[in-house]
């Protein structure tokens, strides 16, 4: 696909409608119930779009909250309303799967700042009747978690059996266990860290600059101008996508193989398969994701610093925690490498917390947590089973 074709793939209208009227469950909070944000402002009214799978038991003790990653959403285990593709964690969630919907009541909410129905920059600002755009306040991971806690209050769920998520989802898991230790029985952050490194921030900054450098971005008011910064967003996605893969995986998959040709084209078309692959990743992404949402959520990840919020000592964040933790990392993940996961383990040990830690051998890079990784499935299933016994949850009949 050429860059001209990418820019022609404008944001479809149904994609934009999804921000206000999502094809999922949604709960709306009025101006009497504002969401207090870390930026120091109240967000009201606001809404949270979510999906649930399985059934809540009579004791309300079998709820599992899934936290999605940067470009994920609440559609974990159903056909996605925009892409018409399967949910993002169908390998992990479902009947008989590690997160067994026969046993657990699974909830996943679109993050605040997202574009799939929870209030974000693509949502309509009730004061103007226009999309929020850059008038939307900057949100943090803690704000996302606070919004989810509001949803759980609404659902009448006091304690979560488990909170599970990878990447940004893992950051939310950590924030959940730190913000509401009494509400989280078990926490499973996967391929996560307690803060973004300079390199992480740098990659995100490249993505944001690509979006903002696109003349179609129009200072964030592209919907008003009926344009879309598709090129910028596609480049942001292409850059980020490289960070999700390991060098070995990229090399194994593409090497220097040529795309639909036998010789170099001596031009700037996608000669190499890897170029074609990245362009495809970029172009499909712009059809389903909002550029401003991308700015806000990447910012929230950059701002996340669990130790910083606890006097620079990570162990302080976990002091006295009753939550049992299971951390997982992947050997070839260079975005959230194992050593950062180990720092969390050390801090949890310093707090004498109940912690398990597994490094999964994989050459699939950061993305491994979304893929078929039998060892991850085994670990997660075993840990949840042990935790369920400790929690007194009944076995699947």
């Amino acid at each position: 696909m050429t860059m001209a074709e990418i820019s022609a793939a404008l944001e479809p209208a149904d994609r934009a409608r999804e921000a206000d009227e999502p094809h999922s469950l949604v709960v709306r909070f009025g101006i009497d119930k504002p969401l207090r944000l870390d930026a120091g402002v109240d967000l009201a009214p606001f809404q949270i779009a979510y999906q649930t799978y399985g059934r809540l038991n009579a004791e309300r003790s079998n709820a599992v909250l899934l936290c999605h990653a940067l470009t994920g959403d609440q559609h974990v285990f159903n056909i996605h309303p925009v892409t018409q593709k399967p949910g993002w964690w169908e390998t992990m969630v479902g009947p008989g799967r590690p997160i067994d919907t026969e046993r657990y009541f699974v909830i996943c909410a679109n993050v605040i700042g997202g574009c799939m129905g929870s209030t974000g920059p693509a949502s309509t600002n009730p004061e103007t009747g226009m999309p929020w755009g850059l008038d939307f306040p900057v949100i943090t991971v803690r704000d996302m978690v606070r919004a989810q806690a509001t949803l759980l209050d609404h659902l009448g769920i006091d304690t979560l059996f488990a909170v599970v998520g990878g990447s940004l989802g893992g950051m939310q898991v950590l924030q959940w266990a730190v913000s509401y230790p009494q509400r989280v029985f078990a926490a499973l952050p996967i391929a996560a860290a307690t803060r973004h490194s300079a390199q992480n921030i740098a990659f995100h900054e490249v993505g944001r600059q690509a979006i903002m450098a696109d003349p179609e971005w129009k200072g964030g008011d592209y919907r008003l101008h009926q344009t879309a910064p598709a090129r910028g967003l596609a480049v942001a996605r292409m850059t980020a996508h490289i960070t999700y893969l390991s060098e070995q995986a990229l090399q194994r998959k593409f090497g220097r193989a040529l795309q639909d040709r036998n010789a170099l084209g001596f031009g700037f078309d996608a000669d190499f398969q890897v170029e074609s692959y990245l362009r495809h990743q970029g172009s499909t992404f712009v059809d389903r994701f909002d550029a401003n949402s991308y700015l806000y959520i990447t910012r929230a990840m950059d701002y996340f610093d669990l130790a910083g919020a606890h006097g620079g000592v990570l162990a302080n964040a976990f002091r006295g925690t009753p939550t049992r933790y299971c951390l997982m990392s992947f050997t070839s993940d260079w975005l959230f490498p194992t050593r950062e996961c180990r720092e969390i383990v050390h801090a949890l040990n310093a707090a004498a917390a109940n912690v398990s830690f597994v490094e999964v051998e994989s050459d699939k890079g950061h993305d491994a947590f979304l893929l078929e990784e039998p060892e991850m499935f085994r670990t997660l299933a075993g840990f949840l089973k042990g935790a369920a016994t400790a929690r007194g949850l009944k076995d699947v009949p």
Partner: protein
Amino acid sequence: MNSAIRVDLQLIADMVDPAARALDVGCGDGSLLAYLMNFKRVDARGMELSQAGVNACVANGLSVIQGDADADLRDYPDDAFDYVILSQTLQATREPREVLRQMLRVGKRAIVSFPNFAHWQVRLRLVFGGRMPETPSLPFKWYDTPNIHLCSIDDFRALCADMGVHIERAIVLDRASKPISLPPLLANLLGEQAVFMLRRD
């Protein structure tokens, strides 16, 4: 649920009070952990050097992290556990004395088991065979053994005395891991391994 564990592990398990908090350093496949958890309601955690061992333990619902006695005990706060257990691993640590000190800082009690290097077979092999001893409890060649700090039962007692550590119990085991009751001099000759329960004085 399997209630049968290795005899020496069973001895250690019997020393642990029900519902206590215990850390098993070098927990291997987690059989002692599982036993403590299932049959004694112990809040049992494990640390294991091999990642494969860790992954198997966690997949079985045990709380285990990858780590080693030399480096990772110092993360834990004082008195985090009622017992810190080190079974058949002390001789493989880089700094056994420091490991013991850390164990007794992190735990109110330490339970340590190790092979006795003064067992008569070991002595015979070295004195008359003129070769580095290989026995059922020390099955390695000199060049590939993980056991870099071997000691005898008497050596261990001397270290405890030097560290001012109180020996609450000492059990000497024969080849079949059966406890034998002998005066110290004979125990050091006939015991193939030993289990000590220690506490700070």
